[in-house]
């Protein structure tokens, strides 16, 4: 492993790789800091351009966007009380009250320091856990693999939102969309309905951009037009001053950062739970352990540190199932998987064996991205207020144009542009029906892998489905998944009955 790490280090020190990591972080912070734009949208819009970069540079750009965007999301949370990313919601609890007291700079510096420290620790966990988990993954057979994917899919579905039914429907729809294209067994086209452009499956770019960026831009446009018609005023902006953290204050928040890093890292390893849960649980734990819990919600530095460390610590461990099993833990990881696939690299149990140096090079770049986040964050915090004043009309118009570029980029095909438009409309309809689009996309990414493993298992057993119930490890994971489904449905029914009786 050490040899691979050393050789991997040698691969990253090129101006190209470092430039794209730096550029990714800068764009991530800027996009995350603009209310209404998220780190996910940044990754989606930049994903097509990784096609033109080397694998390390492309992934460095995406990871930079993710890390920069994660911190960037805390900027509008503190300054405008609007979380730039869903996981920054908890940061508003104490960040905005602190900004109202004229301490926006201190709040943002706390968020930056907590984010960077927790993220770096989570990257260390990734580096040291990836190899042992990959070694373990090499020993599992197709039925066990199928059961693990099924278990992951069920967790992702039931954790997706308030309604597990909608989560499972989203997963089902994602899996169904993954079957469009060519049957891997017979080689004949299926579910293409005469559109031969779909013979290789639904192109990733038009689908992701349409569902996540285009439909989101339309929703933003609707929101903007509605606010204009209502004549609603924008919230006041608190310009951050040059207020760094004192040593005494750092000592005060250090235990919170450590605890939240642990919580976030544990959550990160399990696919589907995600950063928002990480930040919320960390916040609750910090409040419970505090000697002055009444300060939480009034502008406590520990509250900001817990939220930011909790959500950033999820990032590293979240990549463990991706690089060792090919299972993306969340949407950002799924998009990174998409970038790997565009380069002909398929993450899975043998990935660590065959591309160890490349992986360690990428892991090392994660540290550089953290360093860049710290440097750029320190610098950009001063201009954070300005980023929020970029006209929303300009951003929405530009996103439309970027959607077209992104959809066209991968295959130079206008069919893909229209496919993106169709997926944008589908995204709007599914959001209105309360489907969970990120969950659906993660399932779409998992579809081909799941189908392959199901078919391999059935080939071993001559088509007998009992193979999934006679192998102990497979049985454990399938039982856990089924138990979780039954539990969430039963809980939903009893909650509904309780609500109706009141």
């Amino acid at each position, binding site marked *: 492993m050490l040899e691979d790490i050393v050789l991997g280090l040698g691969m990253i020190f090129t101006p190209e790789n470092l430039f794209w990591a730096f550029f990714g972080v800068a764009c991530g912070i800027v996009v995350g800091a603009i209310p209404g734009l998220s780190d996910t949208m940044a990754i989606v819009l930049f994903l097509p*351009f990784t096609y*033109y970069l080397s694998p390390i540079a492309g992934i460095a750009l995406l990871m930079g966007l993710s890390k920069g965007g994660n911190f960037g999301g805390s900027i509008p949370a503190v300054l405008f009380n609007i979380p730039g990313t869903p996981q920054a919601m908890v940061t508003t609890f104490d960040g905005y009250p602190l900004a109202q007291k004229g301490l926006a700079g201190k709040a943002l510096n706390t968020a930056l320091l907590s984010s960077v420290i927790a993220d770096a620790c989570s990257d260390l966990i990734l580096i040291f856990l990836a190899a042992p988990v990959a070694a373990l993954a090499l020993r599992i057979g197709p039925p066990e693999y199928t059961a693990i994917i099924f278990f992951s899919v069920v967790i992702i579905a039931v954790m997706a939102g308030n309604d*597990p*039914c*909608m989560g*499972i*429907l989203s*997963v*089902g*729809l994602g*899996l*169904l969309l993954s*079957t469009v294209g060519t*049957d891997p*067994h*017979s080689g*004949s086209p*299926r*579910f*293409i*309905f005469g559109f031969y452009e779909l013979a290789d499956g639904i192109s990733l770019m038009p689908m992701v951009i349409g569902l996540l960026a285009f439909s989101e831009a*339309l929703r933003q*446009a*609707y*929101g*903007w*037009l*509605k606010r*204009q*018609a*209502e004549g609603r005023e924008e919230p006041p902006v608190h310009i951050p001053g040059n207020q760094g953290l004192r040593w005494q204050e750092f000592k005060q928040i250090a235990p919170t950062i450590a605890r939240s890093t642990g919580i976030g890292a544990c959550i990160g390893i399990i696919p589907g739970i995600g950063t928002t849960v990480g930040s919320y649980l960390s916040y609750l734990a910090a409040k419970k352990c505090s000697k002055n819990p009444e300060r939480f919600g009034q502008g406590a530095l520990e509250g900001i540190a817990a939220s930011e460390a909790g959500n950033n610590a999820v990032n590293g461990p979240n990549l463990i199932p991706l690089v060792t099993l090919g299972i993306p833990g969340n949407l950002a990881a799924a998009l990174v998987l998409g970038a790997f696939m565009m380069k002909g690299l398929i993450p899975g149990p043998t990935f660590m064996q065959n591309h160890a140096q490349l992986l360690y090079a990428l892991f090392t770049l994660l540290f550089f991205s953290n360093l860049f986040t710290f440097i750029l964050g320190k610098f950009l915090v001063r201009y954070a207020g300005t980023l929020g004043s970029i*006209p929303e*009309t*300009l951003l*929405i*118009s*530009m996103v*439309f*144009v970027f959607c*077209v*570029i992104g959809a*066209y*980029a991968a295959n*130079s095909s*206008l069919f893909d*542009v*229209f496919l993106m*438009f169709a997926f944008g*409309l589908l995204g709007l309809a599914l959001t209105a*029906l309360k489907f969970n689009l990120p969950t659906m996309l993660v399932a779409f990414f998992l579809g081909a892998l799941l*189908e392959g493993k*199901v*078919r391999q298992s*059935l080939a071993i057993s001559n*088509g007998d489905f009992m193979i999934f119930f006679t192998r102990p490890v497979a049985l454990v994971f399938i039982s856990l998944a089924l138990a979780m*489904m039954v539990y969430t*449905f039963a809980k*939903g029914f009893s909650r*509904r009955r309780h609500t*109706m009786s009141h």
Partner: protein
Amino acid sequence: MIRGKRLLGLGVLVFCLLLWFLIIPNQTEGKTGAEFPRLIVLFLAIPGAVLLLRSGAATGAAPLKGEELYALRRTALLLALVCVYMLVIPKLGFYTSSILGMAAFLYCLGVRTPLQIILTPLISVGLMYLGLGLGLSFRMPAGLLP
């Protein structure tokens, strides 16, 4: 809301039946080819049935307010403009269409200053050309341009 979810559940079940009896047999080859899609149909049918069986008082959707109706109409117009923009790309080329398209989007979103409507698309698309066209040698449909 409850009625909406029940309708959705019914829709999902009908979709599952269509998939099982009509679409999958016609779109796949042999028993093996249909196996995985049918497993997904079963996976979809479970929440569909649960949604259909949910009980509760039926509540209608609140009528749209004037502002919401205005925003909805404008968004529909914006969607139509995006559609026109995509249709003219092969004829006019990406950069020309994008300048015109962005100007139309800005107008539709309520920008009324002529200078903003003209300069913003010119500068934005110019920067895109510098970054993507020249920087990354990324080729978009040329259309009218050589």
